[in-house]
């Protein structure tokens, strides 16, 4: 069952360029562009979204012909997304509660599966045990099926010149350098990057992942044919967003089409990992 509504109206499309758009930069729109094309090429019919949240993806993928299911760890989000299911012509039960790190809680989703594909936006940065989450995602898709999992991009920190830059260089690049050499690097960096920006959150901080080695984590969970798809470009450092105003958004949106295959690794704050469950394995 799918909706015959359009996934986006002309007015909604124009508003993508509006710097006052609710929710900020429409990053997920540009992720979904890539995911939808890939799903179309794969001939996918069914899709489950992990972390379905407010259900914003439901009309987009339903209108594209996907038979949509969703789970969320937050019961209030399940209620909201159930309404979105109904508005897209689907039963409310298509949205249910589950924790991607707990396979027992996924039984409801399993009964409706396995699915041709799985989408998880904003999930992996917040899970405690990534391996468990990825293995559960693997089990939800058919042999030959695909997953699209959003990650926050660690390499973006190489152009932000802030606390993330300091942490990436000192922890990831120079983590095993010690003594005077390490101290010299730390002192040097503190003078040249904004180590207090952004402020450290008081509670849990989202995880960032490295697109240059993220394939290892997916391979360990059984996936193959792994591809990194950067999105959420920045036409300049984020600190200049206010100063450059509407032009910042327009130029960033223009970059979402840049064809280099590598600039996005540094100019994008996020990427989607596309990975596949082998077709010939149980």
């Amino acid at each position, binding site marked *: 069952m799918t909706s015959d509504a359009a996934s986006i109206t002309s007015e909604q499309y124009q508003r993508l360029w509006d710097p006052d758009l609710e929710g900020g930069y429409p990053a997920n729109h540009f992720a979904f562009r890539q995911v939808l094309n890939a799903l179309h090429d794969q001939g996918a019919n069914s899709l489950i979204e992990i972390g379905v949240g407010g259900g914003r993806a439901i009309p987009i993928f339903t209108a594209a012909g996907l038979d949509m299911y969703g789970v969320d760890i937050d019961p209030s989000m399940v209620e909201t997304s159930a309404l979105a299911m109904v508005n897209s012509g689907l039963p409310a039960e298509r949205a249910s509660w589950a924790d991607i790190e707990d396979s027992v809680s996924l039984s409801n989703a399993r009964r409706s599966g396995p699915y041709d594909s799985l989408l998880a936006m904003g999930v992996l940065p917040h899970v405690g045990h990534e391996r468990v989450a990825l293995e559960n995602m693997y089990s939800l898709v058919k042999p030959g099926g695909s997953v699209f999992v959003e990650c926050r991009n660690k390499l973006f920190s*190489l*152009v932000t*010149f802030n606390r993330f830059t300091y942490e990436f*260089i000192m922890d*990831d*690049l*120079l983590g*095993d*350098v*010690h*003594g*005077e*050499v*390490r101290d*010299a*690097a730390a002192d*040097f960096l503190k003078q*040249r*990057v904004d180590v207090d920006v952004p402020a450290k959150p008081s509670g849990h901080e989202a995880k960032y992942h*490295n697109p*240059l*080695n993220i394939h290892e984590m997916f391979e360990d969970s059984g996936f193959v044919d792994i591809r990194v798809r950067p999105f959420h470009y920045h*036409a*300049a*450092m984020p600190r*200049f967003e206010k*100063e*450059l105003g509407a*032009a*910042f958004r327009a*130029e960033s949106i*223009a*970059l979402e089409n*840049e064809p*280099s*295959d*590598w*600039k996005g690794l*540094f*100019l994008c704050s996020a990427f989607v990992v596309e990975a596949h469950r082998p077709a010939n394995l149980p």
Partner: protein
Amino acid sequence: MADVSAHYDGSAPTYHEQYDPDLIWKNDEYPANYFRLQKVIDILKERGVGSVYDLGAGEASPMIAIREALGIKVCGSDLSPEMVRLGRNNLIQHDMDAEWLSEVDIRDMEAIKSEAARVGQFDSVIALGVIPHVADDRWFVEAMSLFLKPGGTLILQFRNSMFSMFTFNRLTKEFILEELMEPVPDQFRNTVEADLDQRLAVDKPPIRRREDGHGYDEILSKFNNPFELAEVVKSEGFTDLAYRWYNFHPTYPMIAGGIDPKEYRQAQIDLESDTSWRGMFLCSAGMIIATKT
């Protein structure tokens, strides 16, 4: 632009020192090429290579080291007459045939094709420190392929432009503004440039000059973007690409002078065994390893 051949003619008499294990701790300059050669020998050994062609063989020190380590056939060529003259003497002193080293300019397509026809194809072709001096990357990879059997191993060294993402100097500024931000309007680049000028040591690194006007930074000695160079290699019919990195920097080059030299060099050498992604940012040079289809 000064002449590449003249640069290497001038370097030839002392060129062997960079491969001398006794000088690892004594040379002022970090012996990056010593570690590069050890990694090349390891790769050739892992792949069971039975013959090698060295495109840009210098005064034959790598040819001799590979021959002595693996006992395999090694031929090569160089564009510098002085390098070739010294190299042939070195080969003879190590019981190798002087004819295994020829004088050929990689930029001369007909000469390269003629050399390939003369020597035949090898299990591996290596080019260490050559592509920085060649304007046409695609031709260079094609030239390497001429010397390589199907299924053979290409080892292509390059100066790593991604290192500039770590160096916090003039090269960082140039990379961000001219490569990463190339598609955005000048207004954006001007804003970012003003910010970078406050953060980066844009007066470094110094230009390496030589009294005769043929210093390394006075000749064509370009960096390559590893992602873009990999695409060139793939497009020339190679698969199974991998990177190997060398010349690690455990801190910012511009502040290394203020650190105990022995501790700093030890930290550099310790990192050379790393085979992870980190080398893309900590190393000023790398190699693409690929298989000819």
